[in-house]
């Protein structure tokens, strides 16, 4: 049947029996019935469009909400937190009047469907979240996961994703300073493209997404609205891929970084002149999200005239306009007296800006089209009171068997030569190999404040030229560990990111996360999710680093097979003076190498077990968060007091991976000896957590040892920076040239 003339609120009330396409829009039957109950009538087509996208898994967190509450309930007391979970991004006090906002988000499914645009718009979206807090974006990071490095489809997806991240981020003028690239066949049909961004502002410049003050104008500015990305959040991000369904490419948005760059400059100029009362970016769910969130967070209601939205395609229906995920758009709430100036600034930057509505003193969100009222809802029911599911979860039946398959029992190398061969194989394996071919496609110099960038342990940006104040960020996640034990795996991800920040000399302050999991409708996946969240919340509480926000990405699976549970954790740290930062590269021959922390036989989920035996089983390394904290404190003190000249955290690949990286980056070799109580194999390849290797100038050795002794941190002298090979005394020696060839040749050979 037709819905002529226009499906207004009045029309909907008068025609209760009209069938609406709620299932096609991704709503479940009971969810649709709840919409009807809330409204006391059937929704109009426009209302249905709004509810369907806002109640999608991606926007509403309906499956994850009950678990995510722990991040608030268990949040450690922190003076640093200025804005917590719930806003576009969390905000952290880093001192000297500066505040830093940061967040990680996923753009997984779009990047599989259309790698370049999917990844590009992922960068665009996270950057708009940062601007919407009032901050100037200063850096991006990209944790990426792909299928097997030698699979033909990886060659389709990876180069597109990398070019998309570079194409967008480089054009915005944001240095790309960190992230990861991991290969595993579990991500074959479902790559993980996570994108993180950091922004800096003064405390007084923090802006929030709320529409207050009756009579204030709602201004939509940026790109025109088109038909791209319609239903991206509900259809792409919230369902499992299925070969039988038609291609989802029309649901992927198309990015224009040039437009976004103008949007950044124009927004920051408006902030500087204090013209903005509230602001929201248009990302997932587009105008539906921006209007309902602004209205529900503010004190009043909102009236919007949809006819005033500038369109790229004049044939779009009001439902499509509300659902469109066209990129590079923002929505600002501005006092009437300041509207002219706001529009002037937009004009200066050639950004289209249109008043599309105003804040009312009621409590309804009303949207008009061609004179008829097509939406009349309580905005809270759209934005915040979506369905909440207590999904059933259960420890999978195979978990015990997986954990019993002990990696410590795998055959080990029998001779020094074999050890050397395995070292070469390890550092040249796709996961452990240099990612320079990828990161050299990203600009890491722009803005002139980059102190450290990948492959350093954390990216570091100077934020004050006078004082040298800086911030550091590291992202980590190990799906193999999390598969073996999701609770421990999430804690290990946090521990590693925390350690990486401390290794560069910065004090860890706060956490953002991107939780990538399979389908929440699978109880085994839901158990992994519940365990990971519980693990992360517990660990954040113990380390005193609150979760400030983040993102949940579910339905990461192809058919029945879910990805490894992959919680990616970003830790933000602060350093008083970036001149004190500690790099990874060996600086000077003759410096002494110390291994900090305890090494045990821990090979479950290790890089060695994957590379040498293609094995995943056993238990991941033991978590000791108090040890992580102590190690962090020692690394920060040593950096501040000039006791170490280089440092590298130990994680996947173990000690030898770290030493080889430091040697290749510094162009200086190392002579190693196995410390008392360890065998050569465990010394080289174990992945025990809470460890780092540092290079200590001889003049500082006594002082450094005294500090470690006094604080109770095990520190074993394991060798010296020397020569042009990496040598384990009595076992093997590998020249820097052969190590470099193995380490740097792999990725170009597979992908270039």
């Amino acid at each position, binding site marked *: 049947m037709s819905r002529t003339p226009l499906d207004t609120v009045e029309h909907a009330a008068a025609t209760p029996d009209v069938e609406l396409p709620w299932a096609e829009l991704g709503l479940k039957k009971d969810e649709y019935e709840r919409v009807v109950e809330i409204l006391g009538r059937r929704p109009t087509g426009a209302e249905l469009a709004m509810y369907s996208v806002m109640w999608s898994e991606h926007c509403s967190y309906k499956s994850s909400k009950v678990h995510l509450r722990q991040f608030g309930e268990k949040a450690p007391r922190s003076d640093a937190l200025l804005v917590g979970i719930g806003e576009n991004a969390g905000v952290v006090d880093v001192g000297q009047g500066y505040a830093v906002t940061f967040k990680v988000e996923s753009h997984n499914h779009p990047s599989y469907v259309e790698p370049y645009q999917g990844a590009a718009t992922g960068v665009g979206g996270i950057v708009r979240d940062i601007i919407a807090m009032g901050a100037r974006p200063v850096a991006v990071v990209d944790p990426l996961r792909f299928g097997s490095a030698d699979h033909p489809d990886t060659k389709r997806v990876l180069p597109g994703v990398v070019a998309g991240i570079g*194409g967008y981020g*480089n054009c915005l003028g944001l240095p790309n300073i960190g992230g990861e690239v991991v290969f595993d066949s579990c991500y074959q049909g479902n790559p993980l493209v996570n994108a993180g961004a950091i922004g800096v502002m003064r405390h007084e410049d923090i802006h929030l997404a709320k529409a207050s003050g009756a009579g204030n104008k709602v201004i939509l500015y940026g790109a025109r609205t088109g038909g791209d990305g319609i239903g991206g959040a509900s259809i792409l991000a919230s369902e499992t891929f299925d070969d039988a369904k038609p291609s989802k490419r029309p649901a992927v948005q198309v990015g224009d970084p040039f437009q976004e760059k103008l949007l950044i400059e124009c927004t920051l100029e408006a902030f500087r002149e204090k013209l903005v009362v509230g602001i929201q970016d248009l990302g997932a769910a587009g105008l539906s999200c921006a209007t309902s969130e602004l209205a529900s967070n503010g004190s009043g209601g909102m009236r919007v005239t949809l006819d005033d939205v500038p369109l790229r395609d004049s044939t779009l229906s009001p439902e499509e306009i509300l659902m469109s995920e066209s990129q590079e758009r923002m929505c600002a709430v501005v006092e009437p007296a300041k509207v002219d100036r706001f529009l002037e600034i937009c004009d200066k930057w050639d950004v289209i800006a249109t008043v599309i509505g105003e804040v009312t003193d009621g409590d309804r969100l009303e949207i008009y089209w061609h004179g008829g009222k097509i939406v009349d809802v309580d905005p809270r029911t759209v934005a915040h009171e979506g369905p909440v599911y207590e999904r059933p979860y259960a420890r999978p039946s195979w978990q015990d068997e997986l954990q019993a398959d002990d990696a410590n029992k795998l055959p080990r190398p029998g001779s020094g030569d074999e050890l050397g061969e395995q070292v070469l194989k390890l550092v040249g394996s796709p996961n452990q190999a240099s990612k320079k071919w990828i990161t050299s*496609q990203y600009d890491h110099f722009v803005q002139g404040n980059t102190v450290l960038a990948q492959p350093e342990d954390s990216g570091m940006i100077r934020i004050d030229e006078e004082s040298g104040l800086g911030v550091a960020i590291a992202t980590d996640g190990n799906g193999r560990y999390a598969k073996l034990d999701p609770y421990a795996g999430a804690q290990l991800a946090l521990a590693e990111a925390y350690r990486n920040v401390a290794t560069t000399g910065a004090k860890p302050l706060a956490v953002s996360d991107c939780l990538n999991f399979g389908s929440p409708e699978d109880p085994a996946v839901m158990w992994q999710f519940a365990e990971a969240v519980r693990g992360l919340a517990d660990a954040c509480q113990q380390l005193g680093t609150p979760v400030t926000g983040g993102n949940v990405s579910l339905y990461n699976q192809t058919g029945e097979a879910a990805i490894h549970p992959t919680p990616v954790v970003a830790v933000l740290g602060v350093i008083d003076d*970036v001149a004190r930062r500690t790099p990874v590269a060996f600086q000077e021959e003759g410096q002494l190498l110390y291994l900090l922390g305890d090494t045990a036989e821990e090979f479950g989920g290790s890089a060695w077990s994957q590379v040498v035996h293609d094995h995943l089983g056993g238990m991941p390394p033991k978590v000791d968060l108090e040890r992580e904290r102590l190690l962090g404190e020692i690394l920060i003190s040593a950096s501040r007091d000039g006791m170490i000249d280089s440092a590298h955290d130990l994680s996947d690949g173990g000690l030898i991976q770290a030493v080889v990286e430091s040697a290749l980056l510094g162009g200086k070799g190392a002579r190693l000896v196995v410390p008392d109580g360890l065998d050569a194999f465990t010394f080289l390849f174990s992945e025990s957590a809470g460890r780092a290797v540092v290079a200590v100038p001889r003049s500082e050795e006594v002082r450094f040892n005294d500090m470690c002794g006094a604080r109770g941190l095990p520190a074993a002298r394991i060798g010296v920076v020397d020569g042009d090979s990496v040598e384990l005394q009595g076992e093997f020696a590998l020249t820097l040239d052969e190590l470099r060839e193995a380490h740097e040749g792999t990725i170009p050979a597979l992908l270039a």
Partner: protein
Amino acid sequence: MTARIGVVTFPGSLDDRDTQRAIRLAGAEPVALWHKDKDLKQVDAVVLPGGFSYGDYLRAGAISRFSPVMESVIEQAKAGLPVLGICNGFQVLTEAHLLPGGMLGNDHLHFICRDQKLQVENADTAWTSDYEAGQEIHIPLKNMDGRYVADRYTLDKLEAEGRVAFRYLDFNPNGSLNDIAGITNEAGNVVGLMPHPEHAVEPLIGTGRTDGLPFFTSILKKLVNA
């Protein structure tokens, strides 16, 4: 007295603030110039910074070249005003025909960001006098369309007249003809190059080298001694 050096901001310029910082660190006074504004504010020299002006749409530099500020830059450069074009700025200068040749996409088809080794070939321009001819320096390079091309006649003329200002050493990162990284006009007041000297001015930042600072001290000395 010090020199006032203008830095143009086009829509999509990225390294404008970085260039202003480099000018400041060299001891000169940076002056912000706006692309819609013909007025050069009586600056003593102009830098066209890197970035993706107008999104590099149509062709890198092709739209910026027609902006109001460029009318003044072109006119005054012909009368001797020192002008430096960095990366996108170099592309604008070739589009504006202040420098010969042009830039195509990198031969490997990827964006490339690296610490690039260069040889200074001409230390007699307004922007290179603080270097020595033959000096080897490291300057960060980052571009998508950095492959310098020109017809054979132009290349021969540039080589014969010593107007190749910088050449890539050890590794040609984009397929530029004759390994050309930067060139100058006949008078030596207009210089363009793909690498980014403004990213190599502080020991702590970026690659940790300061090999780019002499660009800005060269022009300062020239202007102050003039």
